[in-house]
């Protein structure tokens, strides 16, 4: 039966680690804004530079 004591101590340790990680992420403000990051990751990292009016004008008729 002593194996149970061992298993429980392991499971409890892991659970405490997860709790700690949650508390840390909470404190570091990761849950403060749950919307912006989801949008931010979809933005192009570099703003399109070469898109001037001529190319966009050319592209449009193709549609």
């Amino acid at each position, binding site marked *: 039966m002593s194996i149970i004591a061992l298993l429980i101590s392991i499971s409890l340790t892991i659970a405490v680690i997860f709790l700690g990680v949650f508390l840390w992420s909470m404190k570091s403000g990761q849950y403060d*804004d749950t919307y912006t990051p989801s949008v931010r990751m979809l933005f*192009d990292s570099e703003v399109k530079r070469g898109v001037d009016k001529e190319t966009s004008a050319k592209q449009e008729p193709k549609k």
Partner: protein
Amino acid sequence: MTRTDVVAETTCFHCGAACEEIHWRDDKPFCCKGCETVYEILDSNNLCEYYDLNSTPGTKTPAITDTSYGYLDEPEISAKVLTFNSPSFASADFFIPSVHCVSCIWLLENLSKLNRGVVDSKVNFAKKTVHVDFNPAVISLGTVAGLLASVGYAPRITLEQEKKVKPRTDRSLVLKLAIAGFAFGNVMLFSFPEYLGIDQADHTLTRIFAWLNVALSVPVLFYSGIDYLRAAVRSFQQKQINIDVPIAAGLLALFFRSAYDIATATGPGYLDSFTGLVFFLLIGRWFQSKTYESLAFDRDYTSYFPLAVHRLDSDGEWKPVVIYHLVKGDTIRIRNLELVPTDSILLDGSAYIDYSFVTGEAKPVKAKSGDKVFAGGRLIGTAVSLGVEKSTSQSQLTSLWNSDAFKKVNESKYKKIIDRAARNFTWVVLGIAAVTAVYWYVTEPASMWLVITSVLMVACPCALALAAPFTMGSVLRELGKRQLYLKNADVVERMGTIDAVVFDKTGTVTHGQDPDVDLIGELDEAELAKIKLLTGFSTHPLSRFVHDYIRKAASVPVDDFRELPGKGIQAHLQGKVYKIGSAAFTGFHEKLDQSASYVFVSIDDEIKGYFMIRTMVRRNISAMIQRLGNKCKALLSGDHETEKQPMSHIFNESTTLLFNQSPHDKLAYIHELQAKGNTVMMVGDGLNDAGALKQADVGIAVTDDTGVFTPACDGILHGSEISKLDKMLELTRASATILKSGFAISFFYNAIALSFAVSGHLTPLVAAILMPISSISVVSFSTLAVKLVAKRKFKNIT
């Protein structure tokens, strides 16, 4: 095809508003110079992706005025706004109310493309803030704010910036909840063998589990549940018993009884119930704070206060200074529509001060040179110099709004149901505990203490504490979905008791926006520009319509500005007397069609023309008023009697229709109704009936732009939803019943549990089943009931 045909349906490329006067640029239409300018800036910086992410992402931008953010560069002020400051790196958080879509985020996060001085910017969409890191050697704080404003995201810089404490407390609630939840889960796990009756043979293991439970419960009591203990102590100090007292008693009884059982090896303890209880209680609190967060009034009244004001320097220059640094004897300059930051003496000429924010009285007060002007008043008319009489502090400014003028006079009448229930509850519990104690003392003294603790444990009114936040929170949410935003849960309670509803006319029953305005007469552009300037000083709805109708405003000095309630406005402009107002006031005598409202203009007593304004009655309002029936007591209008005819079609015969009402008359009328014993709800636009809104038991401001905040009101209702007002009232009335039913359910469970406890049969297993069930059933009942009632009530109502 002519171009005007296109024009009729064109919407602004930037903000999506319909264009009346088109500005073309790169074959794209813009509704105003402001929108066009933003496009220009973005275009020249290759940032037009802004328009690809979302069509018409902008907000209508007034052309940038010279009310620049220069004052932010004053070291004292920037120190208040900056969150970090060093010679080559600084950061600041700006609150930007106009953030609303993906494009906004994209543009604001690409600020560095607009100005090299900006290092990085990060948006918090939920809070509508942007955090900007910049290099102060390249760009100053004021320029950063100006940069934001130039692309249509004017930051709102106010005293609020100073209280950054709020989000902190909120986070700690979640931490407490997390710890309680963690402990609850694990304690349940370790209690499982006990539930199933296994492992009876292995006593060491049972002991280990029990002690682990104690270890897990300690932080729950001393961290997660500490607020309840503190609140109970406080209520003892104030000699007032509230709901926290029995909760705290229950928590303590549960914990220490369990610890005792475990230490003496007489039982497994009730720690699963204990941690579960704290967990559920905290969920209730979290839900409550979430509700308030999402419904928080967009604008706090402190945001009206200026952060800085122009002060006359020793070398004769006007320099911006933080208002807290004003001392007696300083000379400051206040411009039109700015607030007076502190009590002072008027130094030059005369001025009109509008104290409606402070007193609720909309009529501006005239002050002559040498008169005292009080903090919180708003200047109407030309800029004046003031001599500071008193230094100022934030608490003083805030106390202005918290002054008696804005307190509900009869607040004490509405004792919170929950407190009343809690008080009775506590006495009943104590009574039961005492009776049981006596009984057991006589029959079996040995188990007396066990029974008493059991009684206190199960009596813990967890479900009772959950019923109110979940019911009220759900009601606030349901109303919020229908665009009625109430200040707090107390208003819901008060709304449920309303038996008289009084309406204002313009802006409430009729549309407050986009009326049909026609100009008849010969006014040239310069004269129109001056009319726009003058009407801007007035808060009367008709003035606003005229003001919005004219495009350009003049900037000339205004002398002897006077607003005569019920008549019109009058002023001297460049030697000419302008009168804008009613026919009698301006001397107009012809008979006109009675179905519209008119604003006449005379210059030097010569009628120059008039504006014909047809305001439309809001859709479906008549059906709503029919449904309200006898509850709809009156219509109070500042307009002329001629409006009576169209209004009488909408209202019942029993409704009193009063016209030519000054703000003071409106207030008096509400007062009269209350004296007759009615609980009155005033529905107005909050502009010229602030006093009435304040006096009424519930004052609802109807607005088509929810950014407006009147300190006097208890709630803001979007104009398009006014046709549901009667149903909203019914919902709040139903919510009182739902709340009471929630209480009944919780009492029912408590009664069952008490019967176990009193008879000495409360085993840990019984407690572990009964307690969560009672909490869960109360929460789901109140949430679902409110949802269901709301669904029923608002069915088929448009």
